[in-house]
């Protein structure tokens, strides 16, 4: 019976370990296979821009519109090249209105570069005409249900109509381009845009077979000289050579498609950009969990080996060879692992939806669809079985039959030293994971609670407020009559979304800096509660774009302006036309994730697509009021809103997810380690039954017995703590380097991890040893 419990603990522990490991592997594998499904993936590249402008480094995936066509025409190694850009339009069909987030404009040769599976229509001419659009399967279903979408019309905004010319299968999870719509760029303004220094669009190319990225990069240098140089001279009045001699750099380069997902340098990153170091962390955790489960197996089977010693001895004395015995024990452990594997399959099927939720992906585990899966799993199971079973097998098979049968080798159950080593390893991992996930949480809460320089609570954002047109100020006035609404401001961007930067200088053109620029009305700093440190802010009745600007402190510092109020800054050349007058300075505020340092800002009097509303009281009630008011003014335009704090929280999505994954899987690892401790404690208590009896007869109290039983475990925890702490410190210190603002690696977290490990293992071990210690010694000594 007791053996059955041990076996169950073994199998369930292994199954949990395998489940966790496979789930993480699925995730990592999906991340590592990003964009590899495109048939020509190895020949597809994105063209990026790398530049240095007065010390500011630009590394951007956004390039100028004429680049694609020019590359195709002038670089023979380039087979195809296209432009691609995403917008978020409002689409109408019949009486339905949709707020779309993934509308992609591109060129007709999209399907010559990227793979797509056409369900309806064909790739040859799907996007060859202006105003045509290809839908993904799920989008088509959303708009047309079961009807045939081909030839149907959908409307963007008020007037522009698109004809559906094709339906393709949805792009899989591991594609960095996941459009719902692919629309022809033909005839749009951007299609005709030949401006070489206006970077606003993505460029993708297909390189001819037999050529490399280096061939193309070399030719791109020529294109910069040929086209960008003259364009710069025309715009700024300075020659390209002069700028280059001042340290300016400007170059295009091809980036392999499959490298895009994990790139952290090129901005802007896609929503789902991967983070390789997190993947490595997850993989390490997966391996650790599996290792902990395997160690449990090894420990329990060597520990219990004493009981099987007789079996081995008898078999050996009857002529069974050592190899035969090894084979027997190995096949036993492979069998156990395969059993655990089957259980793990069940767990995975049950948990995958939850796991997908956690990682915000749609992974599938189809072991029936993929012929490779089952053999792979089988191989995995056998491998784990052999790894976990090898030591016990060799250990058991090497028993000396004579000694065993004579009863001389009263083995204390395998090599106790190795076992302590393995348990200490488990404890190191557990303590490391505990303190590691604690620090991740601590850093995240530090980021989320850091003083931002503005108040992010109770803010509601309306996207696309510009749809109100000239109704905007009336809408704002009406809102302000409501009791729950304190302030309303209109701006071209909001914190967390700033992405438009412009070049300015104060002293001379050589000191030009790229500075975030946005337009807002006079209520911006009131609404966001940003402090004004000098001068004044915009006032009601000021003309839009009246050449007065407000800068933040960092901008003042970077442009090296003393006594800023009334001073000029210039954009481009130092002329009256290009000058702006500083009327005020605001305190710095964090507008980006705290991975980044404080950035400089220039505010210009104006407005834009965002309306930020500061509310008080019941948020739902306010939302209702705002929506009603919107409907009154917006004439059927969609009410598209977000809560600011949620929107801002997106900046830490990767960290939030990492925290969840690391915490959950650390807890799992610790749980499995506890299962191991539990069965080991049970084994040790059982093995020491007689000793405990003797000690009690000789006057040991329950406390003294408990101490004797737990003593070893406490020592193990202490050793593990001493080893785990510096390792964790080193790793977490490295991780924190990713952030411009970081929490401290406080000693008390390590202390807490140590105490927690001690407490948890003591509780676990005491659960078992309590029974052994309180047992009447008469019972344990009765049978000999």
């Amino acid at each position, binding site marked *: 019976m007791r053996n059955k419990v041990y076996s169950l603990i073994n199998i369930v522990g292994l199954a949990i370990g395998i489940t966790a490991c496979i789930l993480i592997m699925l995730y990592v594998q999906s991340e590592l296979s990003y964009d590899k499904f495109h048939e020509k993936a190895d020949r597809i590249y994105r063209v990026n821009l790398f530049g240095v402008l007065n010390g500011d480094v630009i590394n951007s995936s956004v390039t100028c519109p004429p680049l694609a066509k020019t590359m195709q025409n002038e670089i023979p190694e380039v087979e195809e090249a296209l432009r691609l850009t995403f917008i978020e339009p409002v689409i109408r069909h019949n009486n339905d209105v949709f707020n779309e987030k993934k509308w992609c404009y591109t060129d007709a040769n999209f399907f010559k570069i990227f793979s797509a599976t056409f369900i309806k229509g064909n790739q040859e001419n799907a996007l060859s005409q202006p105003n045509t659009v290809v839908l993904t399967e799920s989008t088509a279903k959303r708009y047309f249900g079961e009807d045939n979408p081909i030839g149907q019309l959908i409307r963007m905004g008020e007037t522009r109509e698109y004809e559906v010319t094709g339906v393709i299968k949805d792009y899989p999870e591991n594609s960095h381009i996941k459009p719902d719509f692919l629309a022809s760029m033909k005839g749009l303004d951007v299609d005709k845009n030949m401006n070489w220094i206006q970077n606003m669009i993505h460029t993708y190319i297909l390189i001819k077979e037999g050529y490399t990225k280096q061939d193309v990069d070399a030719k791109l240098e020529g294109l910069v000289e040929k086209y960008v140089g003259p364009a710069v001279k025309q715009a700024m009045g300075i020659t390209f050579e002069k700028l280059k001699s001042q340290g300016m750099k400007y170059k295009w380069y091809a980036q392999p498609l499959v490298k895009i997902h994990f790139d952290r340098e090129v901005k802007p990153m896609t929503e789902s950009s991967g983070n390789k170091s997190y993947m490595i962390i997850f993989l390490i955790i997966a391996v650790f969990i599996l290792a902990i489960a395997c160690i449990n197996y090894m420990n329990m089977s060597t520990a219990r080996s004493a009981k099987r010693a007789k079996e081995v001895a008898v078999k050996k004395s009857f002529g069974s060879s050592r190899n035969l015995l090894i084979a027997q024990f190995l096949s036993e452990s492979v069998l156990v692992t395969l059993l655990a594997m089957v259980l793990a399959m069940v767990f995975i099927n049950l948990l995958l939806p939850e796991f997908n939720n956690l990682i915000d992906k749609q992974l599938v585990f189809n072991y029936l669809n993929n012929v490779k899966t089952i053999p792979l799993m089988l191989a995995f199971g056998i491998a784990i079985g052999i790894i976990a079973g090898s030591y016990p097998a060799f250990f058991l098979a090497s028993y000396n039959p004579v000694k065993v049968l004579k009863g*001389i080798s*009263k083995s*204390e159950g395998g090599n106790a030293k190795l076992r302590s080593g393995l348990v200490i390893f488990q404890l190191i991992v557990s303590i490391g994971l505990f303190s590691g996930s604690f620090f991740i949480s601590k850093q995240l809460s530090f980021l989320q609670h850091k003083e931002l320089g503005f108040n992010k609570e109770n803010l509601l954002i309306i996207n696309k407020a510009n749809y109100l047109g000239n109704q905007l100020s009336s809408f704002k006035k009406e809102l302000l009559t409501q009791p729950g609404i304190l302030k309303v401001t209109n701006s071209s961007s909001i914190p967390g979304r700033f992405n438009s930067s412009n070049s300015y200088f104060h002293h001379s053109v050589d000191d030009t800096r790229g500075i975030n620029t946005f337009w807002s009305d006079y209520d911006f700093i009131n609404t966001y509660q940003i402090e004004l440190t000098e001068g004044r802010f915009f006032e009601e009745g000021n003309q839009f774009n009246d050449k007065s600007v407000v800068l933040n402190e960092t901008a003042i510092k970077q442009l090296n302006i003393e006594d800023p109020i009334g001073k000029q800054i210039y954009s481009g050349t130092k002329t009256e036309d290009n000058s702006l007058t500083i009327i005020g300075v605001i305190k710095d505020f964090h507008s980006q994730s705290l991975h980044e340092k404080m950035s400089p800002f220039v505010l210009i009097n104006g407005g834009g697509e965002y309306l930020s509303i500061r509310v008080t009281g019941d948020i739902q009630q306010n939302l209702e009021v705002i929506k009603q008011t919107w409907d009154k003014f917006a004439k059927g335009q969609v009410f598209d809103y977000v809560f600011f704090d949620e929107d801002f929280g997106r900046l830490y999505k990767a960290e939030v997810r990492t925290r969840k994954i690391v915490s959950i899987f650390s807890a799992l690892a610790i749980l499995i380690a506890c299962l191991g401790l539990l069965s080991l404690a049970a084994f040790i208590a059982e093995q020491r039954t*007689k000793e405990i009896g*003797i000690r009690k*007869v*000789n*006057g040991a109290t329950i406390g003294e017995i408990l101490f004797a039983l737990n003593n070893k475990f406490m020592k193990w925890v202490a050793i593990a703590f001493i080893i785990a702490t510096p390792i964790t410190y080193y790793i977490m210190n490295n991780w924190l380097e990713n952030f411009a603002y970081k929490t401290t690696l406080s000693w008390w977290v390590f202390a807490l991890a140590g105490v927690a490990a001690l407490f948890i293992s003591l509780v676990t071990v005491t659960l078992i040893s309590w029974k052994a210690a309180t047992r009447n010694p*008469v019972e344990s000594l009765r049978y*000999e």
Partner: protein
Amino acid sequence: MIKTEKLTKVFSTEEVETYALHNVDIHVEKGEFVAIMGPSGCGKSTLLNIIGLLDNPTEGLYAFNGTEVSKLKEKNRTDFRKGNIGFIFQSFNLIDELNVYDNVELPLLYLKMKASDRAKNVNDVLARMKIGHRAKHFPQQLSGGQQQRVAIARAVVANPSLILADEPTGNLDSKNGIEVMNLLSELNQEGSTIIMVTHSDRDAGYAHRVINLLDGQVIMEKMN
């Protein structure tokens, strides 16, 4: 020194109640050497365990040196036992992982005796049991007779007033058995009270008095 009155021990399982002891009245004076005899299952060992404060009786009274101890909690029993009672078992019950010296030292550790006093006591008793040269050996490296001498050393090292021996010669050949019995006699002559459970008439011959048990009851007492 020991006085029991209607001592009764019942072992109950779900179906049956078994009387291991039934109204046992015995009386042992200080300095006495008493043997308890009887067939297997007659309750000898149960009686010894209760006298040794390893177990409580179901009913009845037990006075040890005038103190009523039949209802003590385990913790108090342990305190009472420490230093007062030494045990010797048929199967020696030495701890395999400890060497001879450490085995013998065990009761002193639980008495929280100072290290220097412990060393003196242990070495004295090992010398007396003629086992001093084996102090660093482990139990499995010793013969049965040597092991039992170690067990006796452990039983007397704390200088208890009562020594309980449960078939101390059961696992020994006759030469070693006689040696052990001689040792017990010596201890008794030096003042230790000894109660011994035995099957052997030879061993019982060393005792002053023999109590015969059958089915949990005293059927005969005789003086030697």
